[in-house]
């Protein structure tokens, strides 16, 4: 077992509230986003996270360290959320996780490229990416826009981009925690990033300007 994970497990078993609070602080927002893949309501998702922690605490003795503690907790979260969704009679959007490529979703609108019938440059930009002023990229308002664009994504895309690009998880850990194939993890990330880029372009460089 990873030595840091071993320390955390020992602290949690000993009832160390500070250790628990630090984990909750660090993971809660991501746990909510993952729960909301299955149960969209914020209130129910909060409930699922509580139930997850109860299960985690009860199962700590069985944590063997074959994955990181974080991955293990998120897998319990996913199972808890799925069970809860079933209990509430929700149709679990398995397809969103398992088959995101079924419905095509272009990264950039087709009308920004020359059509397939164009004699010289089919599929080349007709309306190229508009310039984004570098100095405004990190402005507070830009960052708020990006946060809002992520908020508006479908729940699976939102969870994947949040884990990868906000929390900085590796592709492999996201795949393991959410039980995603390599390809599907990439498809979800690709779509999410493309939409956020589009939002950035629309905000920093509106079409009519």
């Amino acid at each position, binding site marked *: 077992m990873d030595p840091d994970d071993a320390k955390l497990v020992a602290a949690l078993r000993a009832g160390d*509230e500070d250790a628990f609070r630090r984990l*909750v602080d660090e993971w809660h*927002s991501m746990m909510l986003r993952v729960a909301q893949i299955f149960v969209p309501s914020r209130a129910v998702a909060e409930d699922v996270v509580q139930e997850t922690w*109860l299960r985690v605490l009860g199962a700590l003795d069985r944590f063997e360290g074959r994955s990181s503690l974080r991955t293990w907790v998120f897998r319990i979260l996913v199972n808890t959320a799925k069970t809860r969704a079933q209990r509430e009679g929700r149709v679990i959007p398995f397809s969103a996780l398992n088959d995101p490529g079924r419905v095509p979703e272009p990264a950039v609108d087709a009308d920004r*490229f020359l059509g397939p019938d164009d004699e010289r440059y*089919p*599929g*080349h930009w007709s309306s190229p990416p508009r310039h984004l002023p570098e100095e405004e*990229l990190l402005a507070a308002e830009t960052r708020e826009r990006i946060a809002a664009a992520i908020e508006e994504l479908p729940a699976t895309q939102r969870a994947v981009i949040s884990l990868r690009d906000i929390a900085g998880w590796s592709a492999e850990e996201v795949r393991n925690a959410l039980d995603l194939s390599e390809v599907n993890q*990439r498809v979800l990330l690709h779509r999410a990033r493309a939409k956020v880029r589009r939002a950035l372009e629309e905000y920093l460089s509106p079409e009519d300007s």
Partner: protein
Amino acid sequence: MTVADVINCQELVELVTDYLEGALSPADLRRFEEHLATCGKCTEYLAQLQATIRVTGTLTPDDLTPEAETALLEVFRAFHRGTSSP
């Protein structure tokens, strides 16, 4: 993903994530880079996507609400009350 020998801009934008994730086959990687070398617009697109990732990386996860923290601490305490009794 297999693509024709030469890729156009519309195809390139769909390969950007595979490119950044190191998931392109050697042949696709070559086509991707050959296209980029002569296409300023796609180079700009790639730069914008990388800028997007960079800015997203500066966001902080939403703060835990005090209510949620209290509720979770209660879960933690209740669990330990339940297991620590002799």
